[in-house]
């Protein structure tokens, strides 16, 4: 489902406002072949609260998948 380039080994983070949407995002990425997990490091996100979906793989593909699932990404790290 996504390219296997060198950058795929890098971890990206999508900051998402709620735990429910973060888990939903994680599960959707996993169903699309990504290695993904949920974490919370609010000082890093600088957005009050929120969770991040941390994943390895192509950033643009992952972003498109989550947008198609109506998941709002508040920040990409």
């Amino acid at each position, binding site marked *: 489902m996504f390219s296997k380039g060198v950058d795929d080994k890098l971890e990206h983070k999508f900051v998402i406002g709620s735990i429910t949407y973060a888990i*939903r995002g994680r599960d959707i990425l996993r169903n699309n072949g990504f290695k993904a997990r949920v974490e919370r490091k609010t000082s890093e996100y600088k957005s009050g609260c929120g969770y991040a979906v941390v994943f390895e793989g192509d950033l643009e593909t992952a972003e498109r998948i989550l947008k198609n699932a109506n998941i709002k990404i508040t920040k990409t790290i």
Partner: protein
Amino acid sequence: MIYLDNAATSGIKPQTVINAVERSMKLLSANPGRGGHKPSVTVATEVYKVREKISNFFNASGPQNVAFCANCTHAINFVIKGVLNENDHVIISDLEHNAVLRPLNKTVKDYSKATVFFDDNKKTLESFRSLVKDNTKMIICTAASNVTGRVLPLKAIGEMCKEKGILFAVDAAQGGGVIPIDIKEMNIDYLCLAPHKGFFAPMGTGVLIAEKPINNTIIEGGNGMNSLSVNQNTDLPEGFESGTVSVPNIMGIGAGIDYVNKIGREKIYVKEMRIINEFYDHLSKNDKVILYTPRPKIGEFAPVLSFNVSGKSSEEVADFLDKNGIAVRGGFHCSLCAHEKLGTADVGAVRLSPSFSLTQNELLRSLAVFKKF
């Protein structure tokens, strides 16, 4: 005690539900959505799985639309006070519970009551249709009356709402988990549930499934989102879950749905309808008994039946049954509408609501007591 008050809450909780609650208390004691540590995320994932089960059961758009509330009444209040303005017109049925009537009466100036015909869904639909005005914003109605058991023609009402651009909210405290409810097929925008009834879950947690936005909250506070903002967010589901949710209850709901799915909702419903018809047939042969509905048919009624005994108040009859080992509910069942419709606003009625787990022996013992009326 023979428990015939399952419309109030399911009398017997399955062992799997009890186990899920106990497991939660022992192993899932972290606050979901409030921390980044593993236990918190684990519990949040478990809660999410229950949202998924609820969404799948009612064919909703997804777990993100499923919010946990204090109870079904709380969910209904979120819908009425969060969506409607005082100048909106709303249509309800003449069988509504006070959980709909009271918040609506407080929120809008103008609402109308459609007549539910016990033996004719087309007439019921026409009654709803005839009340639509230019400013009708919502139809909110019960899935099944908590007094008469009458199931409303939800699919037909939902189709009409879609055709006319009216929001459709359903109070499924009584029917949820028992009668077929399909959010997409019935065009339901807001579905409010009491899982302690149809899903045999613990009391004290309700469910709101919102397929459309709710613009205002009625309770504000911490919900794990936007902590640095003074304003409450209205993002589903957490925007409507301020404060800590009851994780043990939610785990009980998940186990309850598994239980219903394992046995089969249809199988449970059919058996409960067979039992309610046994009661109906028996009572209809007693000249002293007053019945208010036709013989309950599958698809048209939920397993709930109300009656009175000539010359006695409903509470007297309920007390008599209690003394003879049978739990039923007399009185008014928190439904001014239904009792006005039945003409029982002065005496109330005796309500029977058996569970599918009622044994043949319990049924026969109950019928033997009923002969003493």
